[in-house]
C-alpha cells in the first residue's frame, strides 16, 4: 500500500539544468500567509519553503526527491557536524564564502546570536527543542534580558560553533536545519521589528513584506551559487500573495492565465475539482507534483479516563474503525492513505508495516462487538473531541465518519467540537484533556524520534499544558529505548529501532492510526523542475524555474 514516499509524478528531472534556469518572476499563490518572517519565530519543518530562500542555516534539507531527500545536508556549515562525548557535543565549522545581504561575512557569533534571540519571550513561536536539548537553557530569557548569552553554545573563533547538550541527540543535524540556526547580525537586530526586513543570508532578500498578505523577494547579490549548491535560485523575483481561497488558487493554477502560468503554491493542495481531471491523461497531469509529507491522522485515547483505561475497549474500537470513510472525509485516496501504523510509511522514519487489529478497510464491527463482549462492556457511550474546522484534518467530517463506524459496532459516540484555535490548548492539558480526541502529528524532521518521542515518552507528559503524550503513557522500558536510539548517530540503525518500537507500542492500542498524508500540488504550466522532495513532499521554490 506504500509507494515509498515522494517523487511520484513529474517529468524527468534529467533534462533540467540549474545553470541555465535563471530569470523570470515566480508567483506564489498561498492560502495562509507567513505570519512572521523572523527566523526566531518561524516553526516550519526543516526551514520551510519560503524562509529557506532567505535564511541559510547550519544544515539544511537535501532537496532530493524520494528517500535521499529525507537527509540533512550541510549549508552554512562545511559538514553535518562532528559529534563527540557520545553525541552530547556537536561542533560545526562555517564556510568561508558566506555573506549577509549587506556584504558582511557571516560568523559563528551571528549564528549563536540568532539562536539566543529565539529564547526571548518577545519572540515566541519557534520550535521548542533547543530549550530542552541545550545544557541549562530552559530558563534562559534571551539576549535582551540576559545579554551574557547561553553558555552551552561556544564560539571559540569566527568560524567555529560548539553546542553542549544535556543528553545525547543523534538527530542534532536534523534540528540544525531549523530557522533558529540562521545567523542574525546583532547590530541589525531590532527585536520585534526585525522581521520587517530580516537580513538575508540566502539567495533572495526582502523587497517588501506585509504579513499574511504579500511578500516580494529579489536577488541577494552577495549570495553566490558556488557557496550553495542546493538552492538553484532560478527566478529573478518571487512574488508571494497570501490570503487566497484554496479552490481559487487551484483554479488559477489550472487556467494559468497571464502571470498565473508562472505560479506555484506551497500550501494549497488540490481539491476535488482538480482531482477529477487528474490521471486522465489530460494536460493537467503535467502540472502536478505528488509527494508525501510524513504525517499521521489518528485517534488518541486518554488512558487515564474510563473506559479507555481498558485495553480491550481500545482494541475493540481499533477493530471498529472504518478507514475508508475517514480517507474519504479527508479528501479521498489520492490525497490521504489509510494507515494502521503510527509511523507514516516512510523509510526515513523507520516505518515497519503492521496491522495488529486487522479489520479490513471498512472495519470489522462484528469483531469489535465480540471484543467488547469479552471485556464485559455493553451499551458503550463515548465522547470524541474534534476541532470545529475541517481544514485541520481532525474536524467534524472525520469525527462524523468515526462516529458512524463506531455506531455499527454498537458504540454511541457523542461529538464534542472544540474551537480550532484552542484545540491543542484544551487537549494538551491533562486536566482538560478529553477521553478521546482526533489528532494529527507531522514530523519536524524525517526521523522516528520527533514522531514517537512527544507521543509516547513518559517523561514528556507535561501537566501544565502543551502535552502531546495524550495516552499519558509512561513505560520506563520504552523511555530507556528512546534514550538509547537518540544516542545513535547512525541513521539506518536508528530507523530500524524506531520502527520496532512503533510496532511494539502499537500492540497497546494507545492510539488508532487512521490515515497518513499525501501531498498533491499543482503548479503553473510554465513552471519547471517542480519536484517534490523527500522531506516535505512538496516541490521546493529554491529549485523551481519559470524561464
Amino acid at each position, binding site marked *: 500500500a506504500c509507494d515509498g514516499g515522494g517523487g511520484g509524478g513529474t517529468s524527468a528531472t534529467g533534462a533540467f539544468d540549474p545553470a541555465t534556469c535563471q530569470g523570470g518572476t515566480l508567483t506564489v499563490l498561498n492560502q495562509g500567509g507567513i*505570519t*512572521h518572517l523572523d527566523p526566531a519565530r518561524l*516553526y516550519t519543518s526543516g526551514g520551510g519553503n519560503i524562509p529557506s530562500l532567505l535564511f541559510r542555516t547550519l544544515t539544511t534539507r537535501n532537496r532530493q526527491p524520494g528517500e535521499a531527500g529525507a537527509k540533512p545536508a550541510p549549508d552554512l556549515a562545511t559538514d553535518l557536524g562532528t559529534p563527540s562525548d557520545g553525541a552530547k557535543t556537536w561542533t560545526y565549522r562555517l564556510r568561508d564564502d558566506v555573506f549577509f545581504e549587506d556584504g558582511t561575512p557571516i560568523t559563528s557569533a551571528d549564528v549563536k546570536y540568532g539562536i539566543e*534571540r529565539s529564547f*526571548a*519571550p*518577545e*519572540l*515566541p*513561536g*519557534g*520550535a*521548542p*527543542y533547543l*530549550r530542552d536539548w541545550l545544557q541549562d537553557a*530552559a*530558563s534562559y*530569557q534571551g539576549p*535582551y534580558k540576559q545579554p551574557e548569552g547561553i553558555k552551552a553554545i561556544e564560539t571559540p573563533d569566527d568560524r567555529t560553533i560548539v553546542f553542549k547538550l544535556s543528553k545525547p541527540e543523534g538527530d542534532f543535524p536534523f534540528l540544525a536545519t531549523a530557522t533558529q540556526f540562521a545567523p542574525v547580525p546583532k547590530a541589525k*537586530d*531590532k*527585536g*520585534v*521589528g*526585525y*522581521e520587517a526586513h530580516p537580513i538575508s543570508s540566502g539567495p533572495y532578500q526582502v523587497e517588501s513584506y*506585509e*504579513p*499574511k*498578505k504579500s511578500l516580494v523577494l529579489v536577488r541577494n547579490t552577495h549570495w553566490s551559487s558556488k557557496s550553495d549548491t542546493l538552492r538553484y535560485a532560478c527566478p529573478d523575483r518571487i512574488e508571494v*500573495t497570501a*490570503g*487566497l*481561497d484554496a479552490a*481559487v488558487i487551484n*483554479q*488559477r493554477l489550472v*487556467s494559468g*492565465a*497571464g502571470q*498565473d502560468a508562472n505560479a506555484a503554491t506551497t500550501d494549497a493542495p488540490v481539491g476535488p475539482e482538480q482531482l477529477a481531471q487528474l490521471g486522465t491523461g489530460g494536460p493537467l497531469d503535467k502540472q502536478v507534483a505528488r509527494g508525501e509529507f510524513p504525517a499521521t491522522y489518528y485517534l488518541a485515547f486518554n488512558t487515564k479516563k474510563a473506559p479507555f483505561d481498558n485495553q480491550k475497549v481500545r482494541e475493540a474500537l481499533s477493530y471498529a474503525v472504518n478507514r475508508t470513510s475517514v480517507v474519504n472525509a479527508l479528501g479521498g485516496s489520492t490525497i490521504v492513505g489509510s494507515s494502521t501504523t503510527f509511523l507514516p510509511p516512510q523509510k526515513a522514519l523507520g516505518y515497519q508495516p503492521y496491522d495488529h487489529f486487522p479489520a479490513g478497510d471498512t472495519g470489522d464491527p462484528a469483531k469489535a462487538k465480540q471484543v467488547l463482549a469479552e471485556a464485559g462492556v455493553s451499551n458503550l457511550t463515548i465522547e470524541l473531541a474534534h476541532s470545529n*474546522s475541517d481544514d485541520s484534518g481532525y474536524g467534524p467530517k472525520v469525527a462524523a465518519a468515526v462516529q458512524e463506524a463506531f455506531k455499527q459496532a454498537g458504540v454511541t459516540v457523542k461529538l464534542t467540537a472544540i*474551537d*480550532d*484555535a*484552542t484545540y*491543542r*490548548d*484544551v487537549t494538551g492539558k491533562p486536566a482538560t484533556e478529553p477521553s478521546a480526541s482526533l489528532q494529527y502529528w507531522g514530523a519536524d524532521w524525517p526521523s522516528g524520534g520527533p514522531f514517537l518521542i*512527544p507521543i509516547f515518552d513518559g517523561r514528556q507528559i*507535561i501537566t*501544565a*499544558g*502543551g502535552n*502531546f503524550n495524550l495516552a499519558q503513557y509512561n513505560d520506563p522500558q520504552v523511555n530507556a529505548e528512546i534514550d538509547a536510539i537518540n544516542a545513535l548517530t547512525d541513521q539506518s540503525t536508528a530507523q530500524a529501532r524506531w520502527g520496532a518500537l512503533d510496532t511494539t507500542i502499537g500492540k497497546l492500542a494507545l492510539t488508532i492510526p487512521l490515515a497518513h498524508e499525501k501531498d498533491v500540488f499543482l503548479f503553473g504550466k510554465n513552471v519547471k523542475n517542480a519536484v517534490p522532495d523527500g522531506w516535505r513532499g512538496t516541490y521546493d521554490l529554491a529549485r523551481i524555474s519559470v524561464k
Partner: protein
Amino acid sequence: MIGYLARRLGGAVLVLFGLSLLLYGLFYLAPSDPAVLTCGKGCTPERLAEVRHAMGVDDPVFTQYRHFLEGIVAGRDYPAGPNTRHCPAPCLGYSFETDQPVTALLADRLPVSASLAFGAEVLSLVAGIGAGLLAGLRRYRWLDRVVNGLVLAGYAVPVFLVGLLLLLLFCVQLQWLPFPTYVPLTTDPLAWAQNLLLPWVALAVIQTAAYARLTRAGIQETLAEDHIRTARAYGLPESRIVRRRALRGALLPLVTLTAIDLAAIMTSAVLTETMFGLPGVGQLLVGAVNQIDLPVVVGVTLLTGLLIVIANAVADLLYAAVDPRVELR
C-alpha cells in the same frame, strides 16, 4: 450644525466604548488563550508564562482594558527586544499574531474594503435606480413585472452563491476576467476595476434589488402626490415632471440609504472578501477571530462601528442638504 455634530460625536463615542467593552468582556470569558497560539507547538508552561507576560495578557481584564483606553488617548509603549516600541495615539495595540500595529493594518486593509464597497454601491445604485425607474414609471407593464420578479429573486440569493457562480462562469469557463486580486486604484485604475468587477457584482445583487424596489415605490408614491397633480394642472410636460419633481422625491430615501449601506457593505463583506481572497478588513477579521487576535478584532470592530456611526451622520447631513424641509437637530 456644530452642536449637532458634537452631539452625534458624543453618541458615537458612547457606542464605540460599549462595543469595545463588550469585546473585551467576551474575549476574557472565552476559554481560549492567545498566548498559546503565539507560543507555538510544544511550548512549555514556563515559556508560556513568559510569553503571556510579554504580551500583557496576564493582567486582569480591567487593567488590560484600561491600558487599551490609555493607548487610544495617549499612546503606549511596548517592550520590543533591545528597545521599546512607541505606539502613538490613537493606539489600538499590536496584533498578537503578526505584531503589526493595528492602526497600520486597518489603514492597509481599508482601501480594499472601501474599493469593494464603493464599487458595489455605485453599481447597485445605477442598476437599482435604472430598473426601479423603468418599473416605476410603468411605461410598459411587462417591464414592471420583469423588474419586480428580478427584484424578488435578488432578495433570495445569498452572496456566496452568486459569487461562486460568477467565478466559475467568468474566470473558469469563459476566462473573460482574471481571478480577482487586489490592485490598488493608484497603481492601475483599469486593473483595479477589472479585478474587482466580479466581487462588485456579487455584492451588488441584493442592494440592487433593494434600490430597485425603493425607487419603484418612491416614484409611484411621489407621482401620486398632490404637488405632482399641481404640476400637471399647470401644463408641465410629463417628462419634466418626472425629471424635476418626482425623481427628487423618489431618490431622497436612497440618499440616506447610500451612506449607511456603504458602511454596511464594508462591514458585511466578510463573505465576499473570504471567497474572492481580497485582503480587506473582513478577511483580516475572520483571520483574527480564528487566531484569538484580540487587538485586531477590537480594532476592526471599532473601525466598522465608527464607519456606521459616521455613515449615519453623513446620511443625516445629506438628507438635510437635499430636502429643504429637514433641519438638523
